Structure formats: structure tokens, C-alpha cells
């Protein structure tokens, strides 16, 4: 039994806007699953349904073994949630917020206080703990949000766009924390619009567009679907023929552009060294060597016809409607 089981999940808003149009997925316990897609694709709506904040219009979902509609209270006991808008109270201090969260999860006062301290230390917010959240930077707020989602040591953690708007250093910090959590056994369901995030963190990725999953699999398998890494070689002087002979030993020759020769390099980055050695032995002078790996964006473009970074043209309305309905 998976930690998250979703079957034909749907959500339509008043006015006929369909934000989620029949999503099926399964996340095994201990997995990190990333929902990758542009703005408006239906990621947030799906997360809100899985965290019992929104009622599905159709289909079903089970989280931690409980049905999100009929056993919602049990779901809430088992999940940790860090939502997109980092819903923190600017007038509370960090410490007060985590303690409140602890109370909301029925931790006894003494336990709650202890947990709050250890979590604050863990996300490096001990120094700022007594300052009002309103004075925190974006990165600090996200860390606090993450810490408060962990107060009750949930089995399943939902993160909605955890690093959107953060600088690279803060982003790395969040990634490290998520990985550590996952090493400890927590299942993580995260949504993101960043390829690198899905690529780096996730065991499996579900690519969503227009309210539907258009591709699913491990980052590697998804990329392999659209092609193999391509090694491009630019020579400093002639000798294209001999170069091609050498390269052909390592992979299929591909049509190159202008002065560039190219081969398909199945081994990817680890296969570069032998190629360089061979070219060197043959006395061929190389000006530049570039490896192009297919990206998840390439997968996206192939499946949907447009790029991830940017907005889902079909779905931009859906998430806007949801915001106004609330």
C-alpha cells in the first residue's frame, strides 16, 4: 500500500474551470515524489485536495492509508504541510508559531516546547526565534514553515513550491533538509516549477500540465525517453574525417552543425574521459567539448508543445479562480 494513492482525481470550480482533470498516481512510502509543471497546471489544487483543504469534485485519494474525504481527520494527523503562501502570522515570533503548531497537533505543553527548540535548532533559527516573523527574510520564513510542518513527525510531508522565490543558498539549505528527512523515512510530496529541483531531489517525477499528468517516471527514465546525451566536439583545425573515425567508436554519429561534430554518448558524463583520451592519442586538437543532456523541459516540450518555465496557457485561470473563491 502506498503512502499516497490517487485515482482519477478531479476538481472543477464554479464557472466551469477544471483545474485537475483526472489525475492518477501512487507514491510509495519513503519516496520523494515531485509534481513538476508550470504555473496554473493544477499542482496547488491537487495538493490542497490531498491535504484535505479542498473537496475533490470527482475521483478519490488516500493519504497514509486514509481516505481524504471520509477519514480527513486521520489524514490531518498523519501529514505535515508547508503551503505555497508560507501562511505565517507576521505578528508572532518564530518560537510562538512552532509552539502553537505543537499544540494544534495535541502535543503536551512540555513536549511541544522541547520539540520547538530542537526544530528551531535544526533549521538554524534559534537566534531569530524570538523575533517577529514579519522581520524574517523569505528564506527564514520557508525554513520556519518547514520546521512547523515537522512538529509531529509526520509520515507524509507535503511541500507546495518550497523554494520559489528563494536565493540559491536558501534553496540548497531546503534541499538538504528535505533529503535528510527522507533519509529518516518520511515520504515527501512536493510541487515545483523548477527542473533542477525535481531532477535533484525526486525519486520519481510526475509532469503535470492542464490538470493532467503527461509523463511520469524517474528523472533518468523520463530523460532517456526523449533521447540520449549528445557530445558535441569543435575542432581547432580540419581533420574532421579522422575525428569522426575516433568518435564513432564511442557512439552513434549524429549530424553536426557547422564546424561541430557530434555523437550520441550513451554513458553520459562518465563517458567523456575515454573520448578525450582517444582524441588525444590520435593527435586531434579539440577547441571545445560540450555534453548536452536532455532535460525534463525537453520531456515537457515533447509531451505538451511548450516549455515549463512560464505559465500553463490552459491552466492560468484555474489557480486564479481558486484564489478568489477562497
Amino acid at each position: 500500500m502506498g503512502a499516497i494513492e490517487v485515482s482519477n482525481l478531479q476538481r472543477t470550480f464554479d464557472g466551469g474551470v477544471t483545474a485537475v482533470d483526472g489525475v492518477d498516481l501512487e507514491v510509495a512510502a519513503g519516496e520523494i515524489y515531485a509534481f513538476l509543471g508550470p504555473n496554473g497546471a493544477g499542482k496547488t489544487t491537487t495538493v490542497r485536495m490531498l491535504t484535505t483543504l479542498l473537496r475533490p469534485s470527482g475521483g478519490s485519494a488516500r493519504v497514509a492509508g486514509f481516505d481524504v474525504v471520509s477519514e480527513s481527520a486521520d489524514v490531518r494527523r498523519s501529514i505535515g504541510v508547508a503551503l505555497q503562501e508560507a501562511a505565517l502570522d507576521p505578528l508572532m515570533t518564530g518560537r510562538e508559531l512552532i509552539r502553537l503548531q505543537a499544540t494544534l497537533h495535541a502535543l503536551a505543553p512540555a513536549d511541544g516546547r522541547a520539540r520547538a527548540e530542537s526544530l528551531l535548532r535544526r533549521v538554524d533559527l534559534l537566534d531569530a526565534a524570538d523575533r517577529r516573523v514579519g522581520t524574517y527574510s523569505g528564506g527564514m520564513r520557508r525554513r520556519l514553515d518547514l520546521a512547523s510542518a515537522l512538529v509531529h513527525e509526520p509520515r507524509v510531508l507535503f511541500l507546495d513550491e518550497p523554494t520559489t522565490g528563494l536565493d540559491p543558498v536558501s534553496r540548497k539549505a531546503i534541499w538538504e533538509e528535505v533529503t535528510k528527512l527522507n533519509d529518516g523515512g518520511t515520504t515527501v510530496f512536493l510541487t515545483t516549477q523548477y527542473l533542477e529541483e525535481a531532477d535533484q531531489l525526486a525519486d520519481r517525477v510526475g509532469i503535470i500540465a492542464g490538470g493532467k499528468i503527461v509523463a511520469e517516471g524517474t528523472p533518468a527514465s523520463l530523460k532517456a525517453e526523449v533521447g540520449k546525451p549528445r557530445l558535441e566536439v569543435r575542432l581547432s583545425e580540419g581533420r574532421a574525417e579522422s575525428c569522426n573515425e575516433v568518435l564513432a567508436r564511442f557512439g552513434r554519429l549524429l549530424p553536426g552543425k557547422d564546424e561541430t561534430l557530434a555523437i550520441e554518448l550513451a554513458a553520459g558524463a562518465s563517458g567523456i574521459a575515454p573520448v578525450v583520451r582517444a582524441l588525444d592519442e590520435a593527435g586531434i586538437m579539440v577547441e571545445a567539448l560540450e555534453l548536452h543532456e536532455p532535460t525534463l523541459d525537453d520531456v515537457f516540450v515533447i509531451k505538451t508543445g511548450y516549455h515549463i518555465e512560464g505559465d500553463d496557457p490552459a491552466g492560468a485561470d484555474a489557480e486564479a479562480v481558486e484564489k478568489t473563491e477562497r
Partner: protein
Amino acid sequence: MSPATTLRVIGSLGARAVKQTFRRPQLMAPLLIFPTLLLAIQTGGAGRAIDLPGFPVVNGFFDFMLAGAMIQSTLLAGNTGGIALAVDIETGFTDRLLAAPIPRFTIVAGRLVGTAVLGALTAVWFVVIGLLFGAEINEGPLGVLAMIGLVTLSATAFGSIGAAIALRSGSASVVQGMFPLVFVILFLSSAFFPQELLLEPARTIAELNPLSYIVEAVRDPVIGAFDATNLLEGLGGLAIVATFGVTLAALAMRRRLRIG
């Protein structure tokens, strides 16, 4: 969730509500400054009214007005609490609470506890103001306790209406827009002037307005004596308001959960 834990949750949310008001001093203005200002102005401006035939026997117009100011405070406290709840909804803080394993009603209950505490504090404030500026509270310390109790209940009752509006609209500016309505309800009652001396149609409406009875119950200990009938009518008025508010709030919450 066990009853003890539920109470703890309500207490924590209530503590937060109180802290919010103190940490945003501007929120204190409608709670204390407005009503005190109005009390001072109306006492000075209409003070000679006690000479009008038909005006109840009082030590001074100030003594008469004190109860009106206190109840005005509770109405505004309900409005302010509603605004705070609406802001929570707008910023998504309420989602944080909804995603936690707490019973839904504790979200409103916590807010109301906060409003009740603020109600009690404003009652104490006005008692102190009253004594400082020469009011004579006929029924003494017992009267003061009764006033504080009634005002606290009143804040809770009107808080539930504010919460209902917040839940239904999800918008702080809608709740803010109810501000003038508070004064309508006050004018159409015996909060600022004796019921018999109001002009029609306000006079008739005041007779039907539960607020009049609530104000009378708070006024008695100051200018008159404990009156069982008035007290019961006052509590009845509170019960009507509270039932109305809690029902609306529950319906609004249910609708919000259904729609998302």
C-alpha cells in the same frame, strides 16, 4: 482529540488573538479610543439632557452613558475580531489551522475566547475611567463584577457575528465595511439615550432591539439597583444575539469547507 487537548487548543488560539491586538496598537483604537472619545464628547455635548422631563434620576449624564460606551466597545471588539479572522483567511493562516487535526469549531472558539478577554479588559478600562471621572456605581463592587461579566458575554456574542461575516466573505474589507452598521444598531437602542426620549421610529425599534436590554442590564448597577427582570431581559438579549451569531458562523464555516 481529548477534551483537555481541545481546551488547550482553544486557549492557545485565544492567547494568539489577544496578543495580536496588543501587538498592533492600531487595533486598540476602535476598541478603546473611539468609545472613550465618544463618551467624553457626548457627555459634554448632550450633558444637559438630564434636565429633560422624563430622564431617569442620575448622578450625571456620564453615569448614564457609561454602559453605552462599554457595549459600544464590545460591538467594535466583535468587528475587530472579525477583521482579524478575515485577515487570517486571506493570508492563508486559517489553512494552517484547517490542515491540523483540530476540531473545526475550535478555530472560531479560539477567536471568541480572545474577543471575550478583550471584552473583559475594556470593561475594566471603562470602570476605571468611570471612577476616575466621578461616576458613582450604586451597586458597588458587586455591581462592577456584574458589569464586567455582562460585557464579557456581550463581546463573545457580538464576536460570533463578526466571525460569521468573516467566514462567509473571507474578506477583511467586507468586515471593515460593517463598521457603520455597528453604529446603526447602537443608535436604534437605548445605548446613548433613554428609550422613552428617543424620537420615532427609533423609539419603537429600540424597544425590539435586544441590544437595549443588554445595555439596561449593564446600566442598572450604575444608576439604579439590581433588577431581576432587567438582568434576565439582558441575558435573554445576549442569548438571542449569541444564538444568531453562532448559527451563522457554523453555517458559514460549513459552506467554506464545502467550497474550498
